[in-house]
């Protein structure tokens, strides 16, 4: 990687360092104050400023004669182009007319970047018009010319040099501040361009790793789906054969054998449930959930869900109430909604200590929507976890010694199923007091039967 060459490396020409319009005004007012003309050239000899004071009649008179014009041009040429070195001093340039110019280089950081020609002025010592002038033509009127000459400032060369020095000092300050402004502006642009380039590079890197991560995520979902399926098949056999033995199909069993088989079956069922959840979530993540819509009775679904968790709730000493209210029938995938309610109820049982209560209630909302609330008096959820409880594999207590089991899939499945119906799930909770999970579903399910969601975003605000 290499940066484009910076302007800091470049030499900047005089016109770029000055605001030429403003500079001309300064020159004009300066020239008028001292009543002496001024010309400023850049390094290439281009004239940037030309201010004439008082010499128009005199020079015009000479210019009107061919020989005068010729010599005038020679003088101007010398003032503009004769080598004058690179020291900050003025060099005199004499005009054949008796007038005088001063030429001085414009120096900046030791470089000659232009020149100033100061004049014409009449040197104090000039007594009468030189012969070189009076002889340019036969009809030369010396008296008229001398009269014109009085309009040009008469000044000692030493004083003229001082005036010029003053001008050069002004010019130096103008160039310096011009340079400073130019650098500030250009560097600002270069710095912004460079930062932009840098950000662009980083963005590309990030986009690359994001694509890689997405691919990995897809592979993970595929792997989970395949593995869940492969695990389920043998597990069904384990459960099935245990059941057959329990039913005595393999001959009589001792009480101990029955107890052991009971445990094998129960654990097997747990494992199957877990694997099914994983399969569900991987289907959801792969976007392969299909909703089978039908008219469903919300009250019935709620009673089913309560009935499923009731044995466990009783065992823990919890009160469970079902208040279906006046729910209209609505369109949904019966199995998926039932699973949502069962998941929510199981969680409520899991996280509510003995003596607590669980209430499942229905509510009709405006805008053709219904809500089902699952309320418990359990341990609740701290506020900073609330936004993430619906994330896949998220556990409020993520430690390996945590008190409550589970894979962290239940709520993620609920959210995906509810959202697939075009509904939403919300939670309100106070640690130590309990939680309320609310499933809100539209009465008419949305059209597409496929879940719109791929992998869920990691957190919702």
């Amino acid at each position, binding site marked *: *990687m*290499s*940066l484009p*060459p*910076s302007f*800091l*490396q470049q030499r900047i020409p005089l016109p770029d360092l000055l605001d030429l319009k403003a500079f001309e005004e300064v020159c004009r007012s300066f020239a008028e104050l001292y009543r002496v003309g001024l010309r400023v050239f850049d390094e290439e000899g281009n004239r940037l400023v030309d201010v004439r004071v008082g010499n128009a009649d005199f020079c015009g008179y000479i210019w009107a004669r061919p020989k005068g014009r010729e010599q005038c041009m020679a003088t101007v040429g010398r003032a503009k182009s004769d080598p004058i070195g690179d020291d900050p001093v003025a060099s005199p340039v004499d005009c054949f007319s008796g007038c005088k110019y001063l030429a001085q280089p414009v120096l*900046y*950081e*030791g*470089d000659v970047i232009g020149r100033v020609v100061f004049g014409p002025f009449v040197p104090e010592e000039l007594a009468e018009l030189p012969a070189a002038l009076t002889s340019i033509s036969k009809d030369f009127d010396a008296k008229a010319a001398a009269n014109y000459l009085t309009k040009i400032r008469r000044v000692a060369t030493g004083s003229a040099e001082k005036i010029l020095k003053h001008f050069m000092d002004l010019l130096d300050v103008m160039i*310096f501040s011009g*340079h*400073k402004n130019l*650098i*500030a502006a250009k*560097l*600002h642009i*270069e*710095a*912004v361009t*460079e*930062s932009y380039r*840098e950000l662009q590079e980083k963005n590309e890197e990030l986009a690359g790793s994001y694509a890689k991560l997405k691919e990995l995520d897809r592979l993970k979902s595929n792997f989970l789906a395949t593995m869940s399926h492969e695990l389920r098949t043998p597990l069904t056999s384990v459960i099935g054969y245990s059941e057959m033995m329990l039913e005595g199909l393999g001959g009589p069993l001792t009480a101990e054998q029955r107890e052991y088989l009971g445990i094998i079956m129960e654990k097997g069922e747990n494992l199957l449930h877990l694997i099914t959840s994983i399969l569900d979530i991987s289907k959801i993540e792969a976007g392969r959930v299909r909703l089978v819509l039908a008219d469903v009775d919300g009250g019935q679904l709620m009673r089913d869900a309560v009935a499923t968790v009731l044995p466990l709730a009783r065992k823990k000493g919890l009160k469970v109430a079902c208040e279906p209210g006046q729910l209209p029938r609505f369109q949904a995938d019966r199995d998926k909604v039932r699973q949502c309610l069962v998941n929510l109820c199981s969680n409520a049982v899991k996280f509510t200590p003995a003596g607590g209560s669980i209430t499942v209630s229905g509510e009709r909302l405006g805008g053709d929507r219904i809500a089902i609330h699952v309320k418990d008096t359990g341990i609740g959820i701290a506020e900073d976890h609330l936004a993430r409880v619906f994330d896949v594999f998220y556990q409020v207590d993520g430690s390996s010694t945590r008190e409550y089991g589970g894979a962290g899939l239940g709520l993620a499945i609920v959210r995906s199923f509810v959202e697939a119906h075009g509904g939403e799930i919300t939670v309100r909770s106070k640690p130590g007091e309990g939680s309320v999970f609310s499933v809100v579903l539209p009465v008419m399910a949305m059209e597409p039967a496929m879940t719109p969601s791929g992998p869920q975003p990691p957190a919702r605000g």
Partner: protein
Amino acid sequence: MVQFNADTREIAVKVVYYGPALSGKTTNLQALFQKIDPKVRGRLMTLDTKDDRTLFFDMMPVFFKTQAGVKVKLKLYTVPGQVMHESTRRIVLQGTDAIAFVADSRRAEAASTLAYWNNMLRNLEANGLDYRTLPIVIQMNKKDLEDARGEAELGDLREVIQPPVVPAVAIRGDGVVETLYAVLQLCYRSLDRSFGLESKWRIPEREFLGRIFSHVDLTGTRIPAEGAAPR
């Protein structure tokens, strides 16, 4: 990169003062501005913010003409120290011929000093400059403060290269001229090796340094008045 112009017989050399924020880079240039005769230097240009910290950089030109008629232009730059000006630092560093790394000597600043040192090495690489061959001098500034590190404690900075170290208290002007001298001497030798300053351009080291340091206030330094130390 040093710029040689054979037509106009000019050489332009760039020296950058690099270092963390508030280590004293601008102070170095301000001290040099006071100590160098205006005949051989231009104005000190500071592009700063209202809060008095360097926004972009400072720049001061130093120039002279050699016996053989070669015009030598030296530009001294500082980089902005604040972290956010990373891209400006990289731009200013572009094409540099030598570096004075101004470090805050205090132990408490060691970590940030090392971070900027490594940042500089990275930015040099980004500019296609090889820090192993580039003339670099470390100035351990603020030596008068308590908690200042000794030269033996600079192992972290000297892990990859072994630059000379000059102690300084730039705010008093101490060590500032010595730092410039050390940088320019290394710089001359490196340019001489690559471009034959003495053989091709007929500029001996003694003259190169002498043209500058004979116009510098050398009070309190051990640099000889004509500016050239024995090799």
